[in-house]
């Protein structure tokens, strides 16, 4: 018998939407754009999704502050989508999640955006999401783990 405690998460659909700053609204817009471009590719594994999102993100400009907030939203979305797939054991989702974590986390810190402010740019339970983020960040900091290759290239599936 499986004994699981199912915690009751607050429904993002029902909860009042947090008013986003104009800059974080750009991040939210980027997440929707990324979803439209790449989400369908998260299917048999995360490889095609990662290719799609990484190529899109790589082409995004980062000259202005607006650019950087947009890129933050795009890479945060890609991390979240990968992490969401990871909960179901999607092959290569872990690699994809760490790949995008390494992109969005430095940018987030550079822009001085807190986890609590960034989270509402995409619907969902922030308690579990931020907790998962911190777990992954800790794993990333563990020596020798979860690295992409030294060129920064997308790891190969084959």
């Amino acid at each position, binding site marked *: 018998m499986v004994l699981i405690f*199912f915690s009751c998460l607050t*429904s993002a659909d029902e909860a009042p939407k947090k008013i986003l700053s104009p800059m974080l609204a750009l991040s939210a817009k980027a997440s929707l754009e990324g979803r439209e471009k790449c989400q369908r590719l998260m299917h048999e594994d995360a490889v095609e999704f990662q*290719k*799609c999102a990484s190529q899109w993100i790589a082409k995004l400009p980062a000259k202005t502050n607006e650019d950087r907030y947009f890129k933050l939203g795009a890479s945060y979305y890609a991390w979240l989508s990968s992490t969401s797939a990871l909960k179901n054991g999607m092959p290569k989702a872990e690699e994809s999640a760490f790949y995008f974590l390494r992109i969005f986390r430095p940018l987030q810190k550079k822009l001085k955006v807190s986890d609590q402010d960034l989270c509402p740019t995409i619907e969902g339970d922030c308690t579990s999401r931020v907790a998962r983020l911190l777990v992954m960040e800790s794993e990333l900091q563990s020596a020798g783990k979860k690295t992409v290759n*030294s060129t920064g290239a997308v790891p*190969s599936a*084959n």
Partner: protein
Amino acid sequence: MKILKPILLASALAASILLSACGGSSSGNGPVGYQSVRIVAFNDVHGNLDPLDSKSTSVVPLSGVPAGVTVNTGGIAYMGAVVNNLRSAVPNSVVVAAGDNIGASPYTSNIAHDEPTVDILNQIGLEVSSVGNHEFDKGLTELKRIQGNGSGISTCYPASGNFGVVGVDTCLMAGKTFSGATWKYLAANVVNTATGQTIFPAAYVKKFPDANGVNGPTVGFIGLTFKDTPSEVNPTGVAGLTFGDEATAINNAAATLKSQGVNAVVVLIHQGGFTTSTVYGDTTCPGFNGDILPILANLSDNVDVVVSGHTHTDYICKKPVKSGKLVTVTQSGFYTKGVTAIDLSFDNTGAVSAVNGFNTPVINPATSYSATAPAYPNGITAVTPVASLVTAASNYKSLSATAGSAVVGYLTAQVNIQAPPPGCTTNNTCDSGSRNKTVETPMGDLSADSQLAAMQGAAVAKPGQISFIQSGGVRTNLASSNGAYPGPFTYSALFNTNPFHDTLVAVDMTGSQIKTVLEQQWEAPNNTAFYAPNGVGEILMPSAGFTYTWDSRQPAGQPRGQGNRVVASSMMLNGVPIVPTQVYRVVISTFLAAGGDNFPGFTAGTNPVQGGFDIDALVKYFASYNTSGTAYSPLPANRVTKLDQNGNACATGTWNGCGNP
């Protein structure tokens, strides 16, 4: 009433699994005639029998641990146990599926034409299922064989080549039979174009008993797959079939069911969505999106529940149909990693009064049926697998090993990949020391030839002209099974050379786009993603007839789009120069078509038409080389020419010591 009491207790127990933490209304409080019904659902099993058939972990919830906990999940014998647990907690239940039960299956099920999966899902008690796109992978005739004719008469896989051997790769049930699925496939939107009839019934009705064992609620099930299925399967698999609009098919069938007096309408659809939740079992449905949304938005009020699939994730949602009525939309995950329970309650008129759904992860104690259990945190307990299903899965695994020993063809010599040169260390740069990915190889050329052949012929509307396979897609040498030549090789040996089970696709590309892709072999980041001490890049190997030259005097590692190693004038198809503006039909894997292995140039391909699997292409190719007298001879790997530092051609097989890397 004395019979009612234990039933209500059972229902209350079932409801408590969900309600103990979340609160909410109870199910199962209707009068005797309409006691609750539990629908136990899963989707996208894809022939996964063993816990290690796919990535074997999931992130599940645990009180006090908001990030969730990573545990081992999956395995059909464990899933069977979860199904049994969910069913035993209630008096009325039915097991349903939302498609892709078979197809794109791991080796054990695949080699036996998914008969093992059918047998085990029969044992689990699956009663009704929609078709999914992968049910059409091998065509309608094979799907009809899988369904069976309902009479229990055995129908083996038709004998062809090395397949269709009774007791080896087909008719593996007791007594060397295969009587088909005991569940009913539904296909409300899949019509035989010639007859105008659906290929399977649109709906299935199940009448449940009340507490007295007589008239209880009646539930109607409608099954279908997504309209765009033909774009995602082998064209020959859906020839002669028309896939109609999903909402139209559902609404028509639902109206019919309602007119027949069913109390609830449940849709089983192989289409789905995504949420942003990060822990399995979420019931709040954040950020729900995907192709199922426009279907939901056009459904009539007759629908009460939508059991979905295809997107390989989990959710329990409440979403509006056309009128604004909220219906429950579920998905359990995939690859046997989770099971959905949906409790339907009815009021005293027989109308649906409540729908409560929850997902249960299939937590296994180990990564194989015999491994030692890991220590999970308090609050998480693994399920005990159904012993008979463990036996069945293990038996099929043994049978598949035997079937894998079937001879597929003959060789005059070993067909090689290129081993790394001396000094190549066992790290990522040398691909774990198993291959040198920087040179054209006979095994790569053979793979490309088989893929091109599979997308040619009269049945293909736009036959392929050129095929490419990346060196990363070819994993090992192909050798005879007895070490002698000419000698036979087995299916398992062939499978190991191309183990990714990629689907093939033909796309239109211009000559200019082909050159762009070829340059990406040495452009960044492929120039350093994989290399050997004397080689650079990841090579694309072409099919016979396509030739070109690359110049090692030109620099590797140029930014994308700026490489200049391919000698444009050298690109030829059957001796005719490739024209930059002319369109060619190029056959590749869907992996490459998506830009895999740093070949984004392939994403420029247009008018894609999917074919079958790479391994099937190889098997088919060797139909012409299946005797000692017709043995296949490895080709010299001379379709690509490398120029050294003086502009002279390097001899075939000497690239690593010739010219610049």
